[in-house]
């Protein structure tokens, strides 16, 4: 199936899709060059995911055409079988891997273990075939390893290999990766990018859906921008930079939030943490002033979430003390922390922050229910008025206070989760990846709200794997490496590059220890 080199690997022509009166895609058309890494970019609600679903055949379009490998199909008639037959392969953000099964079983599940349902599984041939696929994709892992023991980037590569396993070696498909790096720590992302470059060398074409602009600039050659369901341009990314990407995605320059100049205000120490050991965190001592935003730059597994949860009382401390405004806290649990004026925004919004089936009004009120208690009943009117006011103040886009949170976009959900805490005027705000998977507009809105809260005297700790976010938002950033606080950046040193660096820098001893550990495991 070799084609002339100048035919596009994938053409989307005039694809439209509406849900009721909402237009998700309007006449979207673009071409993806063969052997390119093509970014599909746009904010939440831009139509990216609808387009991916149409390509995958999960959803039919209303109108339009799609051409892959010289085969044209009516965009309303795509199906998963069609996608496989023309060589369109998909790996979604959650990978669809079974973490409690072995690598070989993960390969086999799609094809019911290669034997009949009730017949005994032929383990040996299963492992042989899996090993062959792994070898073809140069993934060095045992077929007997349990999926959750495999490093995260490798899991993504295994998912990709699984998607491509049935394509014979000659055919060159289009691989659509939907936010493959969203959950990966920085060094894992590098490994994944290496793998993507490998697929291109092998002659595949990659379409990448991503929120990470640094990633797009690092590996993509072209980009298509979607804005409000419309095609807002397709261009080569040569010589492009982040500001240009943001302009193309948002349609206008989004200013970065304003930070007060360093040392502008005499800071009174609000939070003092001494000798804290919790989870992987060892002997952590830090202080945050009222009105200060402190960033923690750390990778997944560095203990950054444990640190926040330890201060919040959601995780038992092994050692150490936490003082708020000079008073030692007794950390009996989140309820006590909330009562003391501490707020914590967890990383996993769906599982740990949102009450998805409940209304925006409920979501806003739940930490503040006792405020609405009149002694006889809940004051529903006051609650709804406050909810409507909060929706307006925080720029939440939603049909009304009674709409379930599940009907909103991720960015708007996150605004509600933050608003819930800011309404309580906390003394200390703990943010864990506050803008992960959130579009550029919502990200800017969230950053402004955090800065406003700090200006009003709140002390803030932000944990983020997004170095750019830390540089934009924080007055001061400390590295957290393998559970230990490391280098600290202040004032003009708080840059994206330095923030990234301090999350990765190891002390000499640790490097040695890590090396010996790796030798032991291999």
């Amino acid at each position, binding site marked *: 199936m070799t084609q002339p080199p100048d035919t596009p690997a994938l053409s989307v022509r005039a694809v439209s899709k509406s*849900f*009721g*009166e*909402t*237009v998700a895609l309007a006449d979207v058309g673009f071409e993806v060059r063969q052997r390119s890494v093509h970014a599909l970019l746009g*904010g939440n*609600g*831009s139509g990216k995911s609808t387009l991916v679903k149409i390509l995958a055949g999960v959803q039919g379009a209303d109108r339009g055409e799609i051409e892959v490998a010289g085969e044209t199909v009516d965009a309303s008639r795509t199906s998963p079988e069609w996608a496989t037959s023309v060589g369109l392969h998909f790996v979604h953000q959650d990978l669809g891997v079974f973490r409690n099964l072995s690598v070989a079983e993960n390969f086999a599940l799609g094809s019911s273990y290669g034997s009949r349902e009730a017949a005994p599984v032929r383990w040996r041939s299963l492992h042989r075939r899996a090993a062959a696929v792994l070898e073809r994709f140069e993934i060095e892992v045992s077929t007997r390893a349990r999926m959750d023991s495999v490093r995260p980037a490798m899991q993504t590569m295994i998912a990709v290999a699984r998607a491509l396993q049935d394509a014979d070696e000659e055919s060159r498909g289009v691989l659509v990766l939907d936010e493959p790096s969203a959950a990966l720590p920085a060094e894992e992302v590098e490994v994944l990018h290496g793998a993507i470059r490998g697929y291109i060398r092998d002659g595949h074409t990659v379409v990448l859906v991503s929120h990470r602009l640094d990633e797009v600039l690092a590996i993509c050659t072209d980009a298509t921008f979607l*804005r*409000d*369901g419309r095609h807002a341009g397709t261009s080569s990314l040569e010589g492009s930079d982040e500001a240009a990407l943001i302009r193309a995605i*948002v*349609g*206008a320059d989004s200013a970065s939030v304003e930070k007060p100049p360093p040392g502008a205000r005499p800071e009174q120490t609000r939070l003092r943490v001494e000798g804290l050991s919790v989870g992987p965190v060892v002997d952590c001592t830090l202080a945050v002033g009222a009105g200060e935003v402190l960033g923690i730059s750390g990778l997944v597994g560095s203990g950054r979430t444990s640190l926040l949860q330890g201060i*919040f009382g*959601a995780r038992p401390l092994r050692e150490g003390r936490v003082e708020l405004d000079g008073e030692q806290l007794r950390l009996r*649990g*989140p*309820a006590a*922390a*909330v*009562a003391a004026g501490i707020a*914590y925004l*967890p990383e996993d919004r769906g*599982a*740990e*922050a*949102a*009450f*998805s*089936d*409940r209304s925006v009004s*409920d979501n806003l*009120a*739940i*930490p503040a*229910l*006792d405020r*609405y*208690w009149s002694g006889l*009943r*809940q004051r529903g009117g006051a609650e709804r008025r406050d909810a409507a006011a909060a929706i307006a103040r925080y*720029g939440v*886009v*939603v*049909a*009304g206070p009674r*709409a*379930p949170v*599940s*009907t*909103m*976009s991720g960015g*708007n959900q996150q605004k509600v989760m933050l608003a*819930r805490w800011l309404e309580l005027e906390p003394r200390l705000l703990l943010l864990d990846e506050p803008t992960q998977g959130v579009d550029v*507009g919502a990200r800017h*809105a969230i950053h402004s709200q955090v800065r406003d809260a700090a200006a009003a005297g709140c002390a803030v700790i932000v944990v983020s794997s997004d170095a750019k976010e830390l540089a934009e938002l924080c007055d001061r950033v400390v590295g957290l490496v393998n559970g230990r606080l490391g280098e600290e950046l202040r004032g003009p040193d708080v840059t994206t590059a330095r923030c990234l660096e301090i999350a990765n820098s190891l002390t000499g001893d640790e490097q040695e220890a890590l090396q010996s550990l790796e030798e032991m495991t291999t």
Partner: protein
Amino acid sequence: MNSVASRDVHVAGTTRLNRLSALGLAERFGILAIFVAIFVAFAIAQPETFLSAGNLRAIVSSQSVVAVVALGLMVPLVAGDFDLSVGTVAVAGSIVAATTMADGWALLPACGLTLLFGAVCGAVNGALVAYGGLNGLIATLGSATVLTGLISWHTHDLSISEGISPALSDLGTKNVLGVPGLALVAVAAALVVAYLMMATPFGRKLAAVGSSRAAAQLVGVRVRRMVFISFVCSALLGSLAGLLLVAQQGSGNPALSGFTLLLPALAAVYLGASAFLPGEFNVPGTVLGLLLVAVLVSGLTLAGAAAWVQSVVQGMALIIAVGTSSALRRRRMGADM
């Protein structure tokens, strides 16, 4: 902010809401409409028997015990836990009340001890589930089985009918202003539970626990304590149902199985989650669900249907109710998006 995007999403939200309100009416009041339709149909078909004051009182009176069991079942269900022992606690409570009165206790102390017994049962269940981390379904199945054994041991499987306070048995037979006394107690219990669930921070927090335990914990709700209290509430209501059972039967009857009380209650609670507040367990819906099944069974019985029809109707009501309410709940969680 991108104004075009905001407007589009805004429109999306509004249309969704409009679509909901057209369909939403049917969702909210569908069960009520079915109830009215069935009621009117039987009333027209059998005006002398079905519509007689005696029959209507019998329906209401016979459902009072199950209604209180259903209310008890609902409380932990709002937080996401099953309490399968409510029915058995009711039977055990009726034995406690009958035994103490047979021993010469006055009515009020006997009632007090019965409720205390219920609270202790609930505390045991609550401790197992909230602090012991056991699955509610399994823990309460176990405790219900233990209770059944203890009832049998204590009564030697003989009913206790001496010494029942006449005031209590009058409650089971007499009417107040034309309404059966039992029903008045059930209505009072329903009002208290409705108030607790809808108008107090307790009810709202319990609903938050049911929506997401992890999220509730992290916004400062004391999840374990809430779950514990919900089991205490449920067993307290169970023991109240036990008192009504003595009033209704005039005795403590160990041969009664808690599960015959539990299953219609379960159907009512789930039917209730498909009415008024679709996808949420709620008191008015539960009462309506209970009456719907009761009216259906009564009408069919009067029309000459055999006794087995009752089981079939109740079983089917349970399946349909669970099916609809979980579909509604899934939609609220956004699974259709």
